[in-house]
């Protein structure tokens, strides 16, 4: 596993990085510092700074002097030592997102004995790299991550990399707000809809009434009103600038290629709150890795990108054209943009913006007390966007509290990451609100899962992911844990199993056990659920090649199941990776307990 292979096979980046590493120095490569590996030791200082995005300057916090923080290029099998010096006047921490390591090195204050790094203090992390792939690192203290404390980690495999590429770029997406994050949280608590500038209005009512009929529109509004929910609640925070490697859309981060080259993009969603739809118009992407773990290559045109997730894709531009890397936030308030070009300074076209989705009653399917049969205003016949009758295996009568595990005909494989666009019987064109206008673009997307993918285009779904190597632990899980994703939107309180972090009961599993976790999302928002310390394996229909993930994006109103082998002892944070959800309670402890001597 730990062959010290210095004969780097790739061109460009890796040669340079390797050479720099051998010399034990820091070098500069495509616009950012690369710390390469031979002495495997580096210093990172955390300090307040200013960041200028598209000409606007605001306050931020940097790790290692830049935003994003320097990309750490390491090699599997190495032992790395990182000295983190805190130059802030508050405690800080760095969490190595996705890395398998000893608990205290995980860097989450309050877990595994790790305490915040105090002002002026230096903490030394030391761990052995037990894996390869694309990961990232960020602060796990307060809202520092939102202020710029994030960077990429690239770990080269000890052996041959099954993914061949001529160029290798990190594409780190993030969202930056000039506002103080604490103030953002206060506003959400005081007035939850503060940042939503796309609420439904009287103007929308008349437009919808004209399109869908007055009765249907009234019923729809009554149904939402009765629940005191907002169909336009896709993102809690707006006012963001969306960044690619720290650069705004106008700053236009550019990756250079020669026509015909295979370009590997290591795409990381390092946002605090923003889920993206990612595409490169005109350039299909072959997904080769998810959350750092290799998958059987799958060719897609776009993918929905949960906070904290990573995807490595290969693109092969053959022409001398600039291509636009385009990541729209799902609430469509903005986009991150970069360019793939044959030289710096070229600009691709900004593609047409996708319509914003309204949530539908289907996104409420797991809400407690959701009695589909008797719900007032729940007229399935004319509810816009609601067509449960055609969903395979979805039985209306027993939706609430239904037991997925035992339900016959309930195929998890095709449920998870349910791809609405391909669902048989989902005739979008017949749905109110889904009419195509003359230009062919949709005026309104319906339902959280509707990314506005054009007909014929392929969007990645979790069901497409198939691990490159076989699942090693094929035991049937002995413990099943239900994790209800819960919250009180109106109060901006987010919880797991109805409990905030401070008041919650930890999840306990025995070391070595195979465990199934079933996420049930009772809320109207998607939650990217992140477990520290271990990968989970998605039950996505694969039998012996379940993809490994460190973040699982659980769509609203849906259930997603994963398995894991509890082989990393410790007390691991288990939380929603939306920063303000975590800060308002959506976190728990996942404790892997050593077996007692008597057992």
């Amino acid at each position, binding site marked *: 596993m730990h062959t010290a292979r210095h004969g780097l096979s790739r061109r460009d980046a890796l040669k340079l990085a390797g050479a720099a590493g051998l010399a034990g120095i820091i070098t500069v490569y495509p616009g950012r510092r690369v710390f390469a590996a031979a002495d495997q030791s580096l210093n990172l200082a955390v300090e307040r700074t200013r960041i200028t995005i598209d000409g606007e300057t605001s306050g931020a916090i940097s790790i290692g002097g830049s935003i994003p923080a320097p990309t750490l290029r390491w090699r599997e099998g190495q032992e790395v030592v990182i000295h983190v010096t805190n130059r802030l006047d508050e405690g800080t921490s760095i969490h190595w997102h996705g890395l398998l390591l000893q608990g205290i090195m995980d860097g989450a204050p309050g877990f595994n004995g790790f305490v915040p790094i105090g002002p002026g203090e230096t903490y030394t992390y030391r761990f052995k790299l037990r894996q390869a792939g694309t990961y990232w690192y960020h602060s796990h203290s307060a809202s520092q991550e939102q202020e710029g404390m994030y960077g990429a980690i690239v770990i080269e495999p000890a052996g041959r990399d099954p993914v061949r590429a001529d160029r290798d770029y990190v594409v780190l997406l993030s969202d930056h707000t000039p506002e103080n994050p*604490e103030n953002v949280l206060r506003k959400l608590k005081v007035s939850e809809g503060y940042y939503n500038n796309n609420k439904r209005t009287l103007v929308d009512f008349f437009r919808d009434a004209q399109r869908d009929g007055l009765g249907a529109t009234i019923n729809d509004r009554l149904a939402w009103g009765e*629940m005191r929910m907002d169909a336009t609640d896709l993102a809690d925070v707006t006012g963001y600038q969306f960044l690619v490697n720290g650069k705004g859309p106008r700053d236009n981060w550019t990756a250079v290629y020669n026509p015909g080259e295979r370009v590997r993009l290591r795409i990381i969603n390092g946002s605090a709150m923003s889920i993206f739809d990612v595409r490169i118009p005109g350039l299909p992407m072959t997904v080769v890795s998810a959350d750092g773990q290799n998958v059987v290559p799958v060719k897609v045109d776009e993918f929905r990108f949960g906070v904290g997730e990573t995807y490595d894709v290969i693109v092969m531009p053959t022409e001398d054209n600039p291509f636009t890397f385009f990541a729209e936030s799902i609430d469509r308030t903005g986009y991150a943009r970069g360019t793939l070009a044959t030289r710096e300074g070229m600009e691709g076209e900004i593609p047409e913006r996708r319509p914003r989705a309204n949530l539908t009653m289907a996104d409420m399917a797991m809400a407690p007390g959701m009695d589909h049969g008797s719900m007032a205003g729940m007229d399935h016949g004319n509810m816009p966007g609601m067509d449960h009758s055609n969903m395979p295996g979805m039985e209306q009568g027993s939706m609430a509290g239904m037991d997925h595990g035992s339900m016959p005909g309930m195929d998890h494989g095709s449920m998870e990451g349910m791809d609405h666009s391909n669902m048989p019987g989902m005739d979008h064109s017949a749905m109110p609100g889904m009419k195509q206008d003359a230009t062919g673009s949709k005026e309104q997307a319906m339902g959280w899962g509707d990314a506005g993918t054009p007909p014929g285009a392929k969007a990645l779904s979790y069901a497409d992911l198939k691990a490159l190597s076989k699942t090693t632990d094929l035991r049937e899980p002995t413990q099943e844990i239900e994790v209800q994703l819960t919250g009180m939107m109106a109060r901006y309180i987010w919880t797991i199993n109805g409990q905030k972090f401070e008041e919650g009961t930890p999840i306990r599993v025995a070391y070595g056990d195979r465990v199934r976790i079933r996420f049930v999302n009772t809320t109207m928002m998607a939650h990217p659920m992140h477990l520290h310390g271990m990968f989970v394996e998605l039950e996505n229909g694969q039998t012996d090649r379940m993809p490994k993930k460190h973040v699982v994006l659980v769509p609203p109103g849906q259930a997603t199941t994963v398995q894991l082998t509890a082989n990393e002892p410790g007390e691991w944070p288990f939380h929603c990776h939306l920063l303000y959800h975590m800060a308002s309670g959506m976190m728990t402890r996942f404790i892997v307990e050593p077996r007692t001597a008597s057992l």
Partner: protein
Amino acid sequence: MRTTTKSLQRATLMAGAIVVSLSVGSARAAEEHQVEQFHEEPPILGTLLIDRFEHRWRDGENSIDWDVQGWVGGDTNKIWFNAEGSKPVDGEVEEAEFQLLYSRMTSEFWDAQIGIRHDVRPQPQTTYGVIGFQGVAPYFFDVTAQLFVSEDGDFSARLEAEYDLLITQKLILQPVAEVNVSAQRVEELHIGPGFNDIELGLRLRYEVVREFAPYIGVHWERKLGETADIARDHGEDASDVSFVAGVRFWF
């Protein structure tokens, strides 16, 4: 006899206030204990909303009217503050009411509240015990319902509801309704038993930013039953219509 009742009432109110402050204190202490396990403190937040600060033009004497609310606290426990009042443009303050309440989350959409109300005007100044609830009813109606018992043992109640109708993202029409009920005649305050009055308002505001919105509107008040008779006996109109213009802002 009268004095004894009064002091008894005062004592009860005091005891209530002490219970309130104690329970807030212990809840906070419990939270602090839990915080030690983690780096983030549950935030103690606060907000102050000047919901109405307006000039009322009417057939008669114009007035300045206000309605303010605010709170300090966490998710579950809050100290809640309400104030409202009215002052003729060229005169002394006629009505000024203050409430200090302990507010506790009882469900996703509702807070139960208990505390003290003190009316500085009209004279004589009156102190009340307050119990009530505040929250969002289905269909997004903001509702406050309060039961009052005065230092003289008089019972009364108030129900307020308001709704924000978004015409556009920034232009918002807000209907408001309020009813006051009394269990008995209170001569000093010129009210009779039963329904005392009903108020209806309609305000159109423009949110320049979320925190600041000028508005215009109409406000209609009608005294009812014996309260209306008393008003007429004093040579006042039982009903009152005014055009209003003001600002709504919060921090």
